[in-house]
């Protein structure tokens, strides 16, 4: 038992008025009087604003003068000021985890503005519960772990290259692993890049040079990451190269594995010759089109926005428009028609390109997915939904716009790193809106088409962005974690079943073999204290610091007490 338990418990309760936010709606004197009657409470004080400099000084003074060893502030939500009150306790020499908050504003005075009596009674309940829990609180120490300043970047396409170069510029070592023989990824197969019509080959050559000429970046091509263990700051990776296995230790991992083009076998008479994909057209354009080609028909959404692949692949419309214009550049009298469902030319640059293409004479026809175009031997037949009649378009070349799909090994990578993939097998970021480049697991980041199809501008932005995210723990040199985490409080009870390991959303648990058999081990820096493991453990072997069963039960008992 910690020493604090041996000592007599002296709880100081600070009741905040929050100006009139609390005092205007609750009976403060009644709260004060009542609180003095609670067990272990040796000091009660009202503050106009507990969070103000004056309020904080009063709390600090009381801790010292009254020899308090527990502090309860009954005021607002922990979201607003818990960190402030905790650090104030620490400054006064009290362990910051011997602090508890009772939310009598957001969850009481604000919602019961018209019910002074009931609101005051509820505030009494809340304070009593806080005091009861505080008595059982135990001191905790923050957890710190060093971070190795070396990054592993998986995938050597434009996203991975951009991220690697950025990290190197910041002074970090980078290990870049590419499964193909050459760096460059999808860019190696492309011709010109929209909307600037930059030569893909030249661009990637220049970008590869930046990587290979940089002594901070170690490149492994024809290699794969076979094993990854550890956690933020201390990952161990085993890389399989042609010349054997290499073990490296790294601090952070970036996933930049890209996507691949869907091959439309069996759709629209696809044969790779007269009926090709946009990706194959890129090669034809690079070599120079057969000048006899006079009529080209492109079909959008081939293999996407359907039941099997419900998503819109974002970049195929812009690719089609760009390639249509490049066809016109090579064969000015060619007739190019694009059959579409929605032209996804979002933003400034794309819409501009869309307009330019119309000025160049590219024709656009809307088709309904219920009446898809028919590819015939010399023409494409399509029901033109705006004209309300069927059209026959002569076609020397038919180009199918197929979606970018997840890599075949996406699932393997996902298991390797214990990070999730979505229903379309793209990697799933930590939060679709607010954390687009992070995984939920600390220390692992995401960029480029491994996340979702992205164009050149977006890939570069995400590569830079992921580098920025990854640089944060490395620039700090260490990670400091709040000690409100899961602990194996009853080792004998743990049967090593692994249920908690499977459920942990942060990969913070692992099974280890010990002298007592298989036991769960909490990787404390990775744990976020969410409590999923503790609440599902059949054996009650795990518990969460500052939220132990005893503490929560004490709160509930206090609530149910007759007053």
């Amino acid at each position, binding site marked *: 038992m910690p020493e604090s338990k041996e000592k007599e418990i002296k709880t100081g309760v600070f009741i905040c008025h929050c100006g009139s936010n609390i005092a205007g709606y609750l009976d403060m004197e009644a709260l004060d009087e009542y609180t003095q009657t609670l067990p272990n409470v040796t000091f009660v004080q009202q503050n106009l604003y507990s969070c103000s400099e004056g309020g904080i000084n009063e709390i600090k003074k009381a801790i010292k003068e009254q020899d308090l060893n527990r502090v309860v502030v009954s005021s607002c939500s922990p979201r607003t000021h818990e960190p402030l009150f905790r650090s104030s306790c620490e400054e006064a020499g009290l362990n910051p985890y011997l602090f508890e908050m009772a939310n009598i504003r957001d969850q009481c005075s604000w919602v019961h503005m018209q019910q002074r009596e009931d609101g005051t009674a509820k505030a009494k309940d809340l304070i009593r519960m806080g005091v009861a829990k505080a008595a059982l609180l135990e001191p905790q120490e923050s957890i710190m772990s060093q971070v190795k300043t070396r990054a592993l970047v998986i995938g050597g396409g434009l996203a991975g290259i951009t991220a690697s170069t950025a990290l190197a510029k910041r002074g970090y070592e980078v290990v870049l692993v590419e499964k193909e023989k050459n760096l460059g990824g999808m860019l190696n197969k492309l011709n010109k890049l929209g909307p600037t019509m*930059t030569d893909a080959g030249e661009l990637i050559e220049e970008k590869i040079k930046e990587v290979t000429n940089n002594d901070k970046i170690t490149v492994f091509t024809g290699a794969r990451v076979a094993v990854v263990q550890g956690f933020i700051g201390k990952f161990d990776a085993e890389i399989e190269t042609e010349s054997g296995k290499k073990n490296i230790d790294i601090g952070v991992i970036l996933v930049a594995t890209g996507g691949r083009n869907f091959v439309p076998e069996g759709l629209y008479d696809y044969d790779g010759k007269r009926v090709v994909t946009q990706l194959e057209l890129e090669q034809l354009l690079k070599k120079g089109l057969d000048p006899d080609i006079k009529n080209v028909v492109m079909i959008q959404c081939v293999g996407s926005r359907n039941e099997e692949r419900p998503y819109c692949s974002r970049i195929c419309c812009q690719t089609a428009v760009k390639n249509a214009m490049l066809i016109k550049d090579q064969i000015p009298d060619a007739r190019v028609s694009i059959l579409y469902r929605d032209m996804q030319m979002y933003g400034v640059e794309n819409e501009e390109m869309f307009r330019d293409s119309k000025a160049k004479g590219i024709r656009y026809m809307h088709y309904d997915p219920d009446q898809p175009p028919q590819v015939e031997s010399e023409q494409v037949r399509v029901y033109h939904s705006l004209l309300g009649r069927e059209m026959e378009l002569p076609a020397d070349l038919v180009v199918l716009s197929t979606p970018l799909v997840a890599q075949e090994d996406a699932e393997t990578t996902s298991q390797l790193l214990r990070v999730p993939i979505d229903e379309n097998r793209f990697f799933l970021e930590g939060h679709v809106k607010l954390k687009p480049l992070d995984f939920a697991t600390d220390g692992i980041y995401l960029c480029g088409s491994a996340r979702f199809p992205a164009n050149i501008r977006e890939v570069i932005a995400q590569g830079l962005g992921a580098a920025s995210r990854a640089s944060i723990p490395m620039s700090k040199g260490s990670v400091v974690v709040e000690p409100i985490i899961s602990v194996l409080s009853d080792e004998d009870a743990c049967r090593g079943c692994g249920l908690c390991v499977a459920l942990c959303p942060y990969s913070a648990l692992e099974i280890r073999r010990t002298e007592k058999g298989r036991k769960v081990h909490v990787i404390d820096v990775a744990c976020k204290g969410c409590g999923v493991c503790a609440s599902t453990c059949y054996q009650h072997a795990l518990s969460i610091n500052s939220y132990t069963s005893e503490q929560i039960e004490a709160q509930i008992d206090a609530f149910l007490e007759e007053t």
Partner: protein
Amino acid sequence: MLDVGRHPNIELLAYSDIEKVEGEQGDFTVTVRRKRRYVEEDKCTGCGACAEKCPATVPDAFEENQGNRSAVYSYFAQGIPSTHTIDADYCRQLQGKKCGICKKVCQADAINFEQEDRIITLSVGAIIIAVGYDVFDPSQIPEYRFRELPNVVTAMEFERLLSASGPTHGHLDRPSDRAVVAEIKALEKKAKRSQKTLDRFEKKHDQASADVYEKYRKGQYQDDEDRKKWADKYAEHLAVMEPLETMQKQAESFTVAKRLAFIQCVGSRDFRFYPFCSGYCCMHSIKEAVIAHEHETETTSAIFGMDIRAVSKGFEEYKIRGGNNSNITYVRGRVSEIIGGADHNPVVIYEDTQQRQVKEEEFDMAILATACAPTKGMVELAKTFGVELDEYNFIKTSSLAPVDTSVPGIFVCGCAESPMDVPESVAQASSAAERAAETVIQSTLEKEKAVA
């Protein structure tokens, strides 16, 4: 926002303008004007007691002027910092009248009517511009009759109506109905006052007002000044009561808006205004239609657009779900005109391009998906920073250096660069942070080299 407010490495200078930028990457000197709030930042706890007692009424810009706030205010409840500000244009004290209530109620003694602007200079290595965008003003489009028809609103106004913390607490009360309800309240106040006066007369003379009025009209009481006044007051009262009763009857039939029309590409993909696509509006229309349906399951929505551009992760799936579960119909075509119908209902005229017919359809409300316009003052801002703008006044970048402006060491992210949605803005913010960090580190290394 809370993270920004609390991070030890971030100094937040809200309510401030950039006056001058000098120097070069690695060594900029920036002059900042910290505008006076008339509230001292280090004292204000953001408790809001001042705003509660302030007697001034000001249209609330955060609610898109659909509600009111006081003259001392915080822009919105969760705003960081929570420091309040006095709007000098509306503050009675600062306008030379007698007031100062806020100063009296502020227990933190933070109100300072004598506060002045402060000029400070910052020495920084890199700069990131993230000034965002403005909502396009649709009153420039005559055929949509924005403001002329009360129930034609912008998506941003609609967003506030949908919000539980907004002016209608999330109920889709129509602006035309809200105007009537406000008028009823004003008249009720008047009627209450005149009724009080009449009550006094009735008590004094022990006679009914109607009786006095009737007799006065028939020529009686010509010499009775008191009753003459009484009769005049009664006439005034009737003049209030008549329209009040009509309106009250009218208000009984008010219901929330249930037939919604969302009009896409308002000001964007339009050669008269902005030819570009604003990128995010298709999705916010779908989202608003889905939420409206969550509030009231009878709600039906029609989204009128040339293309529905649901292009990011999960967006196409969301669009399909909206159609299947939230009574949303997607109509392909641009709306040509909105006209007024019965009961203030907007009538949408459009070509159904699939059926090749011009149609008219009546709705309870029409919501305009307005373009993402470069923020006001962009030209001056560009001059201050020396950065180039594109033809629309967004900050110019290139696809190979997506967050670099034309000035080394100055970067941009979000809608200041071009229209984009939340995840893209967040990703770009990290990109700009990366470029800024690279700049600072490189210049520090160079300086160290120079010293060595």
